[in-house]
């Protein structure tokens, strides 16, 4: 028989790391030394061409690729909350929360905020 499962999930945090550099927030990821592919994560090698990668910070600016507002209960979350795919300038596409109940539009300009207290990537409109 299987053992008893732990009551709470204690898995490593899979989200990209957001750090404050100077007065701006950036996503700590990696860029391929060969093809230039940007990743939002500290990937072991380039996901696109398998070459060596170097650490790189992306952001704070980006453009909204799409956005939705989640209105259903999700464990550990209080709806409604908005999630957007952001194409960071010269960087990867990341999923981010829209900060502070604000709104953003597809094609609109945003910047990273944070790091948020709970570890989410957050953005706000700069328009």
């Amino acid at each position, binding site marked *: 028989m*299987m053992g008893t499962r732990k009551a709470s*999930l204690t*898995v490593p*945090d*899979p*989200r*990209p790391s957001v750090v404050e550099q100077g007065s701006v927030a950036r996503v700590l990821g990696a860029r391929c030394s060969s093809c230039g592919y*940007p990743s*939002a*994560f500290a990937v072991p090698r380039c*996901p*696109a061409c398998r070459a060596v990668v170097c650490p790189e910070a992306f952001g704070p600016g980006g453009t909204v*690729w*799409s*956005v*939705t*507002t*989640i*209105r*259903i*209960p*999700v*464990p*550990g*979350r209080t709806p409604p*909350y908005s*999630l957007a*795919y952001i*194409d*960071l300038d010269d*960087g*990867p*596409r990341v*999923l*981010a*929360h829209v900060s502070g109940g604000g709104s953003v539009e*597809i*094609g609109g300009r945003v910047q990273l905020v944070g790091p948020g207290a709970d570890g*989410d*990537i957050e953005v706000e409109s700069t328009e």
Partner: protein
Amino acid sequence: MTAFVYGVGSSRYAKQPHLSAGDLVAEAVLEAFGDAAVDTVDAVWVGTVFGATGVAQRALHRIGVTDVPVITVENACASGTTALHEARAAVLTGRYERVLVVGVETMTAEFDGAIHPEQTDAEGRQGLAFPGLYALAAARYLHEGYATPEQLAQVAVKNHRHGLGNPRAQYGGEITVEEVLGSRPIADPLTLLQCCPISDAAAAAILGPERGQARDVAIRASAMRSGGLWDHRSESVWGFDLVRETALQAFAEAGVGPEDVDVFEVHDAFTIGEIVTTEALGLAEVGGGGALVASGATTIGGATPVNPSGGLLARGHPLGCTGVAQAAEIVWQLRGEAGGRQVVDARLGVVETMGGGVSGIDGNACVVAVLGG
């Protein structure tokens, strides 16, 4: 060499938490055995996502399916069709002669609503529930002018109407575009009636080499792929490229094109999914899927009926079961046994299933199979 479907079966698709996975599997498998007019198999492939460890063996030994290899696979929503794809390959290579395919999922005992985002996934951990993933595609489509909210709603209207003709379906009814758009918001722009329900169900199919029986249905082709990177370079919405590539592979193997197909069962977990999928299958250009459903072409009686069973939206979406349920529907359609939802003179059918949940790629897996002809 061609693999054939000898027989299919299924439980009802419903919220029926009083039935165990074993009850549901027994109902589906015994119907499939009777339909195939056989009593034994040489191996079993099982598709399930949240099934308990040993879910298939726990069910099968009670109906005398023992002592043969049982192989359980998980490929998110494409788990059932992955089992079908692998079982067909086993028949084609001669690894096993007669193979049972089972899809099973019991969801309502586990979830109150949408399945919980996977906490080991970067986007799941950020709270991206499945309706949100599809909503991001829908929002992009609306922004690009590729579809209208009314066209999205028409997918739900059509598939709920189709569900009326399917006595096994979870839902069926005459609903209006206004009712769909006015139903409870789930993840903008998707509303409740644009989202599939969770379900408890099992479905089964028995495969083997040609045996010269008229009711057997040929699996003419089957392709399965997992997604490429979906990232800042991706112009297409999530999943489109994976479905398109898988479909091209399946159509090439079958030697036919989408224009030759009489009936489709596709992955409409959310309304936008059917629109994007019909485009990826080649039934319409990108941006033409909304107009396609609005034209009536994908309604039973139209030129290319899609989801006559009611699809995931109305038949229900018991994750790992769904792919086998889709295949069973196509078998019934091609035999002329689909009753009040029969597509007239259906000779060639396509099943398409899409599984997701891993962020960073275009999909966990997609299967496209071509049956009949």
